[in-house]
């Protein structure tokens, strides 16, 4: 009997959530779910470069912010459908990824991380001084109450983000299982050795940065409609950078499912913490989980599961 391909599971889960979204009328779950899905996109996108190739990118907020402000620019010019804004945000972020990659990928380790962090700060400063998109005054995007075919506009945003999450997961999975993923893994293990073996390291890293940045930009494009008032501090928040790293780290960076597990776990905890216990605990939760996983399970939840599976197999074979 033929084995069911693993890509089918994310599709089935997405279809199940889509069906559920038509039944659940409570908009709170749509808003909270949107945030969780948004982090699935960001974490999966981050993992393509950070997890597969080992290049730690602190600039997730930069790409996310490009997507968000790309949507603002289009909204001001001719108010296209959201899908167009998402594609535009993805392309612009991808191009910025291309430029960033050429400029920074000669750096490794902490130098690369600092360079990406600087990118977010530089872009935030640029937007702060760009009056066309509101500058520091921010931008108000008036969200329609409803849209054809959906119970509410918030439901529409949720479904859009669900689609993006599915795309991000499938792209991450496809890259991981292809020759690109193997090449990136070789770079992560030993870049010099990979280069000597004929792996086109620069091309692969540039490609990974573009795809990663593009997906992050796509996740940012619906954000102005979610929040309705976009200011540079919200769009380029360091929280995106921190969460995008923490989630794959907790879930596991070597498998496409790792960032999904990490994002669901961490984002749900943060959402629950916001409306139950002190919100000041939010960042502390991220910190405590990060330290715990780095020390106790450096390969994340997926790594723990893998270790358990290997032990079990050894026990069975003996």
């Amino acid at each position, binding site marked *: 009997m033929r084995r069911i391909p693993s890509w089918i599971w994310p599709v089935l889960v997405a279809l199940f959530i889509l069906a559920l979204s038509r039944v659940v009328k409570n908009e709170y779950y749509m808003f909270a779910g949107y945030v969780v899905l948004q982090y699935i996109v960001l974490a999966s996108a981050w993992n393509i470069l950070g997890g597969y190739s080992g290049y730690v990118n602190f600039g997730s907020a930069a790409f996310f912010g490009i997507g968000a402000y790309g949507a603002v620019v289009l909204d001001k010019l001719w108010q296209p459908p959201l899908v167009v804004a998402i594609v535009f945000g993805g392309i612009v972020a991808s191009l910025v990824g291309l430029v960033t990659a050429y400029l920074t990928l000669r750096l490794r380790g902490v130098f690369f991380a600092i360079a990406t962090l600087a990118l977010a700060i530089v872009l935030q400063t640029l937007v*702060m001084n760009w009056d066309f998109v509101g500058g520091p005054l921010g931008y108000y995007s008036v969200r329609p109450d409803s849209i054809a075919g959906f119970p509410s506009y918030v439901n529409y945003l949720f479904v859009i983000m669900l689609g993006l999450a599915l795309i991000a997961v499938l792209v991450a999975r496809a890259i991981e299982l292809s020759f690109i993923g193997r090449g990136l893994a070789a770079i992560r293990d030993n870049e010099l050795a990979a280069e000597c073996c004929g792996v086109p390291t620069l091309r692969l890293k540039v490609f990974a940065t573009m795809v990663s940045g593009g997906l992050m930009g796509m996740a940012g494009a619906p954000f102005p409609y979610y929040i309705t008032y976009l200011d540079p501090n*919200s769009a380029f928040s360091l929280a995106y950078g921190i969460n995008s790293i923490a989630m794959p780290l907790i879930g596991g960076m070597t498998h496409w499912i790792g960032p999904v597990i990490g994002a669901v776990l961490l984002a749900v905890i943060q959402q629950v913490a916001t409306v139950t216990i002190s*919100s000041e605990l939010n960042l502390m939760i991220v910190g405590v989980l990060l330290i715990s996983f780095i020390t106790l399970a450096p390969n994340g939840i997926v790594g723990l599961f893998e270790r358990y599976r290997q032990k079990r197999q050894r026990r069975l074979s003996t």
Partner: protein
Amino acid sequence: MTRLKIKQNHDERISSPKLLSSESSAKGAGLTRRRFNRALMTMSALAASGSLPVRSAIASEPIKIGFGMAQSGPLGGNGKAALLAIEMWRDNINARGGLLGRAVQLVYYDDQTNPTLIPGIYSKLFDVDKVDLVLGGYGTAVQAAALPIVMQRKQVLIGTGAVAVNEKYKYDKYFQMLPNGSTARTSTSEGFFQAAMTMDPKPKTVAIVGAVTEFSRNVILGARENAKKYGLKIVYDGGYPPNQMEFGSILRSVQAANPEVVFVASYPPDSAGVIRTAYEQKLQTRMFGGAMIGLQYSELKQQLGPMLNNVLCYEFYVPAPTTNFPGIKEFLAMYQERAKKAGADLLGFYLPPYAYAGMEVLEKAVTAIKGLDPNAIGRYIHANTFDTVVGKVTFAPNGDWAKPRLLYVQYQGIVGNDLEQFKRIGTQVIIEPQEFAYGKLYYPFAASGH
């Protein structure tokens, strides 16, 4: 160590019937000011001492009022003070028999001064907590994020501390408890420029300095207009990034331009930094100040002490012979008693009276229309003038105050770092508007060594 608090406060404390006379349990409309204040004092004292009994006394279903309020993040300090004021109103109204005979229950969450959390918080308030009324949090960004959700539910939103939020939406049930008025952009600096023009000889040049942030940018745009209006030449016009900590180079550039007046639009950490740097450099100018957020807080007043002398800055409220609004003294006395325990601003001159006054407006509207219909509440608030602890309040069609009333105050005779001196009349002298002015403007700026 950061104090961690439970933020989800489904407050169940409801007043005891023993505390209510048959008279005071009547609907709020028939209350006298004295009885109101007495009830406030009694209930606040009981609440502060923790002796308020937990029991359902007024009616079976409480009226739930929901909001997000910063308890952490950059504006957490202000949020704590505003929350305390709202809690004081709740204790007061429950002591008087509740709103429409129903106990008032507050449902609030810490928005962390983070607008990205607002959609989730307000949808939870409406869809899960099923609140009857909502309030805005503190600050423009969080209220701007909350307004579309409130509009979608066609509810009333009364907020404190936001500027120009309703410019684009023009929502008829939005109200802002801030004395900046409906022309906030220019009115925020108007008093400063009016005061500057009273100097003899009249100044001719001004330097404008501000953070590149939402509030400061709004204020600076207005300050440029005012400078033009009063015929002042702008000799320096510069912004600095939000996290700037070093102001030496900026103030040296300002000094090089030799302005007679220096107008600063800054946030709390910058306000302290700019004033300290001005003193270090002995900045030579005739008038110094502006829309410097932070100088209104007890912490900064205490920290800066005598360095505040001759600085002209806006305040929402200061003790003065002209600001003796009915109920304000009692409110502040009780607030200051509870503030220490609540970890809120110790003086409470800035936001608390306005947050409390906002609740008074809501209470009067709900009591008058005898219901919670948002359309009727909105119409009533637009149509009436309200007597509150911050004086008479009338709203413009866009929901801001119809008449701006930002106080421009000069700090005078500050000695040492004792906080008590700021409670005295005469240390924070109102210079503008003339309706509330009672002192003389001193110049030049004290840091210049004159």
